[in-house]
């Protein structure tokens, strides 16, 4: 399957979890991949290196770039490097996120600023820096959201940022329409990635949700891939929920027991 052959995909925060699954899926479709991670010298970097090797073995080009999207200069350098080494960008997948797990009223000022810096401003910095390249390729921007954008999760201030970004997706879809850059979002349900390991520490018994209501990272990646293809050309400014029906099943398990 070479649907994305010769296309370049950048996924922010792709050393782990959903980002990694998207990178793999796009590489399987023939795309060249830019793997971004925030922190050098740690386990993210090791995982990013392994992922790049894996992508190259699939016959695609892969490059890894360390950048903290919360920092404007870091973002500029990231896209500068992509432009220089890959020469183009077709898809920008806004996946990176970082947030404390605390009730919102307990966040310190520095935590609040960090929350907004990474998960709101950081994504906008990426959009701004990517635009010159995306305009040339009539590319697409896909934001990875979560059910926290519309439902309460315990100790999950990130949800409010996801909601803000879904709003930005609607805005940008219209304002970038003339430039033929499309913007959509995929809203994932509960995925057993690294951040789930955090979530389960604040949400007692979430482990007891039936397996059938957990989403696999690959299932989210498949919808992202669909949004990257021509087949999705009629969809614009939308957030597609991929949650195995969890959000339609309010307290279903409670009712059962």
């Amino acid at each position: 399957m070479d649907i994305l052959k010769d296309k370049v995909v950048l996924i922010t925060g792709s050393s782990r979890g959903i980002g990694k699954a998207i990178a793999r899926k796009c590489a399987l479709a023939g795309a060249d991949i830019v793997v971004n991670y925030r922190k050098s010298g740690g386990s993210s970097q090791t995982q990013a290196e392994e992922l790049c090797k894996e992508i190259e073995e699939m016959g695609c080009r892969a490059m890894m770039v360390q950048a903290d999207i919360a920092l404007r200069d870091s973002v500029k350098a990231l896209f500068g490097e992509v432009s220089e080494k890959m020469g183009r960008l077709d898809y920008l997948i806004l996946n990176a996120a970082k947030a404390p797990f605390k009730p919102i009223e307990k966040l310190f000022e520095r935590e609040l600023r960090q929350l907004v810096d990474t998960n709101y401003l950081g994504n906008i910095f990426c959009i701004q820096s990517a635009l010159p390249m995306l305009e040339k390729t009539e590319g697409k921007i896909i934001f990875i959201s979560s059910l926290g954008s519309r439902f309460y999760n315990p100790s999950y201030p990130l949800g409010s940022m996801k909601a803000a970004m879904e709003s930005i997706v609607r805005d940008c879809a219209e304002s970038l329409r003339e430039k033929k850059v499309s913007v959509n979002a995929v809203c994932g349900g509960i995925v057993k990635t690294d951040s789930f390991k955090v979530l389960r520490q604040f949400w007692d018994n979430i482990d007891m949700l039936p397996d059938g209501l957990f989403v696999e990272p690959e299932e989210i990646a498949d919808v992202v891939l669909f949004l990257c293809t021509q087949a999705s050309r009629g969809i614009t400014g939308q957030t597609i929920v991929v949650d195995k029906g969890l959000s339609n099943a309010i307290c279903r398990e409670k009712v059962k027991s």
Partner: protein
Amino acid sequence: MSQNLITEEQVFEELKKAIVETLRVDENSITPDSSLINDLGAESLDFLDINYRLEQAFGMKMARHFVLEHIEEMFGEGTAIDEDGRLTEKAIELLKTRFGHNMSDLKAGMDMDEIPVMITVRSMTQGVMDILNSLPEKCTKCGNSAWQSDEGVKVKCGSCGESATYTNGDDLIKAWLTKVQEEKKIF
């Protein structure tokens, strides 16, 4: 005297297991003095993963927040970390009280990000031991004191089968902070 039935050795072994599974490092590279971040490559999410594995193994709850966060929650924002993200004199005094005065690397004005680097296998083991040492003398359900460990590192009441009830890590830190504040009036 503590009722804890689990030895420090056992905690160390469990912690090693959790680290190997989370960070995929060679077991032999883990020593009590290894810094999880600098020597073993851990990141913040990894700590939560390691904590979760320990919680599953021992049947307790690790602290969700580090002592610095508890200080600020108790005594106000800015009391431990200034607006530039640097540790205050008071925070240093408290950390030294908690982790020992031989921690010569602790200095007022140091960046808060340097603190997690100091977390070692030894200090994490101690953190687990503190929680395990909170085991009450008597079973909270039947009132007998007949704790026994099962095949692994979980403790149950030998009389009624109830699982051990440990104080969670955050509550232990808060109780400790309250006690130190009463004695030393740091904040």
